[in-house]
C-alpha cells in the first residue's frame, strides 16, 4: 500500500492547475445573501457528474475510432475483395520475407561489429547506429510505412533530449529509422520507487551529457494515446538541465489506424493488422529546440512543449495524467472543489 501512496503524491507534483481545463461554465460565481436555495441547489455538481458519465475527455483519448466501411456498392465491393487478396496473399508474405531478411542482415553484421571492433570505439558505435537504423527501416518496410519527415534532422550533440507524443509501439521505430536514439518511456509509477526515480534521473542526466552517447528520446506521456489528443507530459524529461527538442508525430488513418488499443486487441493482432494493410502513413515534424525559460518550472516547461507538439500535429490537449488508466485521481482535486465551495459560502455569510 505504501507504494501506491508515493505514486499518488508523485501524481500530485506532476499536475498543474486542472481547474483551468475543466468546464466550469455550469458554476456561476454566487453573490448576495445566502439562502436555503443556495445550499440545497446541488445542480451544478450533479451536472458535472452526469456530464462525466455521458462523455469525458479522458476516455476519449483512448478510444479507437474505426473508419467508415467504403466497400458497399456493386463495383467497390469486388475491388475491395481484390484488395484483400493482394494485401493478404501478396503483400503480407513479401513483407514477412523482407522482415526476416532484415533480421538476418542485422544480426549477421551487428555481432561481428560489436565483438570484433572492440578497439575502435568511434567506428564501432557509428556502424552500430547505422545497423540499428537499417533494421528499423526494414521494420518500417514490413508495414510499408510512408513517412514524411519535416524539419532539420536531429544532430549528435550532447545536452539535448528529444520528446515526442506517443501513439503506438511503432512510433519509436519510425523515429529510430532516421536517428538511432536511446529510448526511454516513463514507466508505470508503481514499478519505480521514489528512490529509484532519483537514480534513473541521475543516469539519464549522465547519458545526456555524454558527447558520444546516442541522443535520448523520451515519450513523456507514458502511455499510448489515440493520436487525436495528448495527455499530460511527465516532467522528468524536462528537468535534466538540457535543451528539449520536440518531435510531433501524426498518423494518417487513410489505410489503417496506427493506434494500438491494448484493451481491444493484443499486440500481435495489431501488428498483423498493420502488416496486412496497404500502408502506414505518417508525418514527423522535428520542431525548434526549447530551453527552460527563466522563472519557468519543469511542469510549465513540459506543458509549453506539449502545446507546441499538439499544435503542430493537430492534437487536442487534455489535463489528465496518462497513468489514470491504472490509478485513481489524487484527492487534491476533489478537495479543491470543496474548498472553493466552502469559501464562497463563508464569504456570502460575511456579506450579510
Amino acid at each position, binding site marked *: 500500500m505504501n507504494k501506491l501512496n508515493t505514486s499518488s503524491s508523485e501524481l500530485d507534483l506532476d499536475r498543474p492547475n486542472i481547474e483551468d481545463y*475543466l468546464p466550469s461554465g*455550469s458554476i456561476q460565481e454566487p453573490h448576495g445573501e*445566502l*439562502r*436555503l*436555495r*443556495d*445550499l*440545497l*441547489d*446541488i*445542480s*451544478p*455538481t*450533479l*451536472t*458535472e*457528474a*452526469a*456530464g*462525466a*458519465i*455521458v*462523455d*469525458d*475527455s*479522458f*476516455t476519449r483519448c483512448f*478510444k479507437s475510432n474505426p473508419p467508415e466501411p467504403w466497400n458497399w456498392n456493386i463495383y467497390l465491393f469486388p475491388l475491395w475483395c481484390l484488395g484483400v487478396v493482394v494485401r493478404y496473399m501478396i503483400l503480407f508474405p513479401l513483407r514477412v520475407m523482407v522482415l526476416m531478411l532484415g533480421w538476418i542482415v542485422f544480426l549477421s553484421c551487428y555481432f561481428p561489429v560489436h565483438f570484433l571492433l572492440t578497439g575502435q570505439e568511434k567506428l564501432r558505435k557509428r556502424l552500430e547506429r547505422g545497423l540499428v537504423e537499417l533494421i528499423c527501416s526494414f521494420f518500417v518496410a514490413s508495414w510499408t510505412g510512408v513517412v514524411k519527415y519535416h524539419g532539420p534532422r536531429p544532430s549528435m550533440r550532447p545536452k539535448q533530449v528529444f520528446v515526442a507524443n506517443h501513439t503506438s509501439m511503432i512510433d519509436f521505430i519510425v523515429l529510430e529509422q532516421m536517428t538511432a536514439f536511446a529510448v526511454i518511456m516513463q514507466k508505470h509509477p508503481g514499478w519505480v520507487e521514489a528512490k529509484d526515480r532519483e537514480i534513473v534521473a541521475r543516469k539519464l542526466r549522465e547519458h545526456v551529457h555524454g558527447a558520444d552517447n546516442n541522443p535520448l528520446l523520451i515519450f513523456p506521456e507514458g502511455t499510448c494515446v489515440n493520436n487525436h489528443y495528448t495527455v499530460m507530459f511527465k516532467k522528468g524529461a524536462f528537468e535534466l538541465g538540457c535543451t528539449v527538442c520536440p518531435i510531433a508525430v501524426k498518423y494518417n488513418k487513410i489505410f489503417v489506424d496506427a493506434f494500438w488499443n491494448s*484493451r481491444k486487441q493484443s499486440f500481435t493482432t495489431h501488428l498483423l493488422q498493420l502488416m496486412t494493410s496497404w500502408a502506414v502513413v505518417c508525418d514527423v515534424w522535428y520542431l525548434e529546440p526549447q530551453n527552460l525559460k527563466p522563472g519557468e518550472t519543469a511542469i510549465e516547461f513540459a506543458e509549453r512543449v506539449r502545446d507546441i507538439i499538439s499544435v503542430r500535429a493537430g492534437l487536442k490537449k487534455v489535463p*489528465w495524467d496518462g497513468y*489514470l*488508466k491504472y490509478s*485513481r*485521481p489524487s484527492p487534491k*482535486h*476533489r*478537495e479543491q*472543489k*470543496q*474548498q472553493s*465551495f*466552502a*469559501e464562497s*459560502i*463563508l464569504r456570502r*455569510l460575511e456579506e450579510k
Partner: protein
Amino acid sequence: MGNSSSMLTQYDIEEVQEHCNNTFSQQEIVSLYQRFCQLDRNGGGFISADEFMTVPEFAVNPLSQRLLRMLDGLNFKEFVFFLSAFSSRASLQLKVDFIFKVYDSDGNGKVSFNDVLDILRDLTGQFIAEHQREHVLTQVLEEAGYTKDSLLVPADFMKILGSSDLKMEVEVPVD
C-alpha cells in the same frame, strides 16, 4: 436487452425511450448505449462502481460516492432513466425530484436536517468546521420558514428550488 451483443434493436430503443418518458431521442439512446458499453468493460450488463471511477472527471466529483449508490447495478434501461433528469427535454419537476432523491438517501420520502448536512459535508469537506456547517444550515432554514426538526418533502423542494433558472442539463454527443 441482449447483454452479449453490442447491438440495440429498434424494439430495444423504443422500450428504453418509453421507460424514460421520451426525454431522450432515439439517436441519443444509441449514443448512450455506446457509452454504456464503453464503460461496462467486463460486459456484465451493468457498470460497476470501479468502472465508473475509471472516469477521472467523475472520480473527482464530491458527490461521486452518493451517486454511485444510486447507480449501483443499474442495467441500461435504468441507466438511461437515471440520466433522464439531465436531458434538455426533462421537466423542472423531474429535475427537482432527482435532486430530492439524491438527498433522500434512505428513500423514505422525507429529507431531514441531517440529510442536508450530509450533502453539505460532501460538498465542503474539511474546509468548514462541523459546527459552522450546522449553524449556517440552521440559519438559512429558519430564514426560509423551517426549523431544524423540519422534514422536507418533494413539494418543499419544488417550492425552494423550482424556478426557471435551475440549470441541470447535459448534452449527449451524437455522432
